[in-house]
């Protein structure tokens, strides 16, 4: 029986949860190695050896050590192609390319404004950091424009890359979940018909529900 892969970092972290959801979709056994960020563990030399930018997650699978959540997820999907959800990253180059473009769009267009809003509205208050109203306004505006594009796309297609749930959709779960459930900006999703439908479907996946459970118990 293979050693479970190791994921360093708390399930509360959006990037860590992206990896956890992927591992669950692929039925790959894992163990979470806690990183106490409140004590600055992620900035200590031992941790910087596996993640030189001092961020979470980091990941190990036997002799392979990786960081950056999307590359960890790609590695998992590639190495464990025949396990769990086999189509998560597509089964041929054309499917993979279509998924990749939406993963990039998530990282470049959806992620920054949604991440900024999640930080300002869900995390900053808990960390006693004053909110930046200007940043909230600016990022909400940016996010609206991006979500209009998603609304159109999801009117043509059930999921972002086609008829099946893929990593392209999964990649949006971490920020989307906080936006909808931990801020007052959930209406940005739910007021758009196609986006709302898509959101309900992807957030209802067993893998994501398990991640949400893991967050509650951590």
């Amino acid at each position, binding site marked *: 029986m293979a050693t479970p892969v190791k994921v360093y970092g708390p399930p509360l972290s959006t990037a860590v949860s992206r990896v956890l959801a992927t591992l669950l979709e692929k039925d790959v056994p894992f163990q979470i190695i806690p990183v106490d960020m409140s004590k600055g563990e992620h900035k200590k030399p031992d941790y910087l050896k596996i993640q030189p*930018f001092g961020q979470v997650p980091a990941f190990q699978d036997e002799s392979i050590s*990786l960081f950056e959540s999307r*590359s960890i997820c790609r*590695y998992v999907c590639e190495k464990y192609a025949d396990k769990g959800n086999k189509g998560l990253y597509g089964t041929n180059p054309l499917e993979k390319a279509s998924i990749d473009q939406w993963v990039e769009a998530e990282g470049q267009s959806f992620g920054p404004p949604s991440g900024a809003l999640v930080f300002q509205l869900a995390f900053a208050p808990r960390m006693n950091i004053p909110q930046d109203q200007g940043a909230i306004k600016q990022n909400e505006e940016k996010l609206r424009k991006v979500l209009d594009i998603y609304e159109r796309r999801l009117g043509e297609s059930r999921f972002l890359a086609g008829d099946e749930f893929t990593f392209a959709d999964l990649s949006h779960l971490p920020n989307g979940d906080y936006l909808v459930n931990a801020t007052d900006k959930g209406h940005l999703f739910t007021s758009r018909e196609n986006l709302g439908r898509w959101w309900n479907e992807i957030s209802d996946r067993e893998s994501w529900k398990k991640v949400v459970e893991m967050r509650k118990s951590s």
Partner: protein
Amino acid sequence: MAEIMKVHGSVISTATQRVLACLNEKELEFEFIPVNMAVGEHKKDSFLAINPFGQVPAFEQGDLKLFESRAITQYIAHGYAEKGTTLIIPGKPMATLSVWMEVEAHQFDPVASKLNWELFFKPMFGIPTDNAAVEENEAKLTKVLDVYEARLAQSKYLGGDIFTLADLHHLPNISCAMKTQVKKLFDSRPHVSAWVADITSRPAWCKVVAMGK
């Protein structure tokens, strides 16, 4: 794979340049279709049909339409693995290559793009530079390049022993940054500096630069 590849974009767009560099490295024939952004061509319905985000570049090959430069380069690099420069490393090393591609996309690019916008593009368009933004982002880039310096001390290229997409993806923003005061951040780090000199002198990149002149 026999159908002609088309790249819609602008020669001064860093993202377009990323795709052109990849096609040149692979020695592939393609059709370049300039998009006139000054007149808002990228926001018109005909363009939105190939890139719903209204950004450049967009890519077509037969029925396949793709957007996001890094998705396009990966499609090309994997699909034409046997042609021209090998921009990927098959097997286990691919995982490490993938890490550094993500580093470029999420750690380097946001910061370098902001600096290039402030120090290169704004002056070109006659818009005043925001010095606070420059200072903030120079501090961030300093930290990123410290990590790069350590990485390049152990590895000839970012992704491994050979030049790959992990290095190539940096070319447009590095080239631009080297024309600004940010140059000093690269020059002052010996391994980073040697790597920059190496990758920016590649003929495939020089061809992209020449297109912009």
